[in-house]
């Protein structure tokens, strides 16, 4: 399990200054394909600036996205920016930019024409769509290759072209389905950086669907974990991290039962495993009190980390439940 030190976590997105209005509201959303129930009575209100959809393969992540876009019939209720997915599909599609999971392009067409066409289909006038196609391709880093046919692109470049077509019309909600699929580490970093940049511009909200925990942890402030078509967990990552700031992990040399007892006398809960200790600090107890106790008993603290639940912990807990 990855542990992050007590210092500044570079991967932690900055918290939102004010609560955002709801992006997606689900009320008993159920999707059936024939006799199979793919999504079962999902109820949640997604408010984050960037919401991660997590879950193992077949959990229903992509089905949820496709249902929100009106591709699949459903029962129950779901709203995107307050628009009902059954009756206001066109309005929702006007507000959404979608980057599908699988290969999706138009062959024998250059990237700039492709993105321009997608912009025009979203309602942009031709000249404006062409201008924005160039901008979007510059933004995603395909400026040099924008006149090349999409069929000649590498997988990473196709992913970037898909991102460009998703943002060309300036949507309010960007839905990214496995955006880092098949990318090498450098390309993945570039994609994550771009998603972060889009989030930071605050021009649009993001729903990122992935089975890669790291991608979600890097970019999202909320996470919805699905398991077998049901919501296994929904949380605000920032709040979770704040709530876990009283968990400490120590690596100590020369500790004996005396040190543990002293810590417990302060009201802290403590678990020892060899030279490693895990403790929950009691109210009013600070780390300097622990250092003081250690100094008094000549115990050397080699490492002290605030242990927070990583997304992996949250995910595994959700899966166990």
């Amino acid at each position, binding site marked *: 399990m990855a542990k992050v030190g007590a210092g500044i976590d570079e991967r932690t997105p900055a918290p939102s200054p004010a609560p955002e209005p709801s992006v997606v509201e689900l009320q008993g959303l159920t999707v059936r*394909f*024939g*006799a*199979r129930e793919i999504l079962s009575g999902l109820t949640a209100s997604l408010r984050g600036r960037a919401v991660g959809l997590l879950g193992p393969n077949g959990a229903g992540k992509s089905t949820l996205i*496709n249902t929100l*876009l009106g*591709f*699949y019939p459903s029962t129950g209720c779901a709203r995107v920016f307050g628009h009902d997915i059954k009756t206001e599909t*066109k*309005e929702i*599609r*006007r507000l*959404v*930019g*979608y980057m*599908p999971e*699988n*290969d*999706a*392009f*138009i*062959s*024998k*067409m250059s990237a700039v*024409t492709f993105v321009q*066409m*997608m912009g*025009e*289909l*979203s*309602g*942009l*006038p*031709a000249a*404006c769509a062409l201008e*924005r196609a*160039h*901008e979007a391709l*510059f*933004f995603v880093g395909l*400026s040099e290759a924008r006149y090349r046919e999409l069929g000649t692109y590498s997988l990473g470049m196709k992913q970037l072209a898909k991102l460009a*077509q998703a*943002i*060309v*019309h*300036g949507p*309010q909600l960007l839905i990214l389905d496995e955006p880092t699929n098949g990318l090498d580490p450098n390309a993945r970093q570039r994609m994550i950086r771009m998603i972060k*940049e*889009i989030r930071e*511009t605050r*021009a*649009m909200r993001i729903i990122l669907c992935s089975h890669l925990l790291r991608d979600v942890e890097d970019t999202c402030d909320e996470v919805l974990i699905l398991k077998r078509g049901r919501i296994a967990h929904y949380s605000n990552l920032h709040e979770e991290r704040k709530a876990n700031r009283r968990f400490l992990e120590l690596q100590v040399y020369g500790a004996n039962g005396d040190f543990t007892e002293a810590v417990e006398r302060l009201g802290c809960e403590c678990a020892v495993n060899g030279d490693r200790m895990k403790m929950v600090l009691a109210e009013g107890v600070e780390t300097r009190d622990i250092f003081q106790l250690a100094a008094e008993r000549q115990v050397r603290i080699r490492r002290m980390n605030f242990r927070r639940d990583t997304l992996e912990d949250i995910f595994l807990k959700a899966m166990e439940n």
Partner: protein
Amino acid sequence: MAVHRRSYTAYSGALTPAWSRFLVLFRHSRRSLFRSRFQTGLFVACFFYPVVCLCLIYLAHNLSFLEKLGSPTQFIAINNKFFFYLVYVQGVLAFILTALSGPGLISPDLANGAMPLYFCRPFSRAQYVTGKGSVLVILLSQITWIPGLVLFGIQASLAGVNWARENLWIAGSLLVSSLLWIVILSLLAMAVSAWVKWRIVAGALLLAVMFFGAGLAQAINTVLQTQSGHFFNMPYLMSTIWDALFMVDKEQAISAGAASIGLLVYCAVCFLLLMRKIRAYEVVA
């Protein structure tokens, strides 16, 4: 925004009307169609027969010139048969053009998974079909009823108002017969293109539907001693309707009404097949 800034800004300008967006698809599809030199060459070649017809109309109204050449003047009669043959020849060419250009309309989108990209936008399946279909409809119109009506207009202007009044029904027949054939070919080409992902196979299938249908019809008629087999022969059904529309005396095994119903069924089947495939994602129950 200057492109070199590489930062993202949202679009806040005016949007085009929703009804006009199928034209975007039409424009881009047509452009990609004419990227092929062979296709362009074939399209130009399709105007050869109308040009020949134009020359014949000119010659028919310049009899003195023909007499000087010693040619019989009776063989150029500009009547219903003249326009029937025009529709027939152009109809065959329209089919060849469709077999070459039709399969490339939808199959590449399906093969490359582009459907979700279209339908995640405020763009409906009907608009998609209209956009793709309009490419064929306009392309085939340019080689069938448009030159036909131009020739009719030239003939009318040369022959006088009386001829035009008496033969106005020919113009109507020309328009209706061509449009019927265009709609059938467009729907069939799009349905085949939607179900077969490989362009070449789709083209071959389109040819097979026509020729295999004729063979099957003949076999049924011979084995079962019936005329019902003709319902499997789409070109036969079409020519039956053309004969009726142009009042050409030919013995037909089935009536024009029955042929119309047969073609209507074909259109409905093609449309259903098309709508079954044209969707963002296929649902497998």
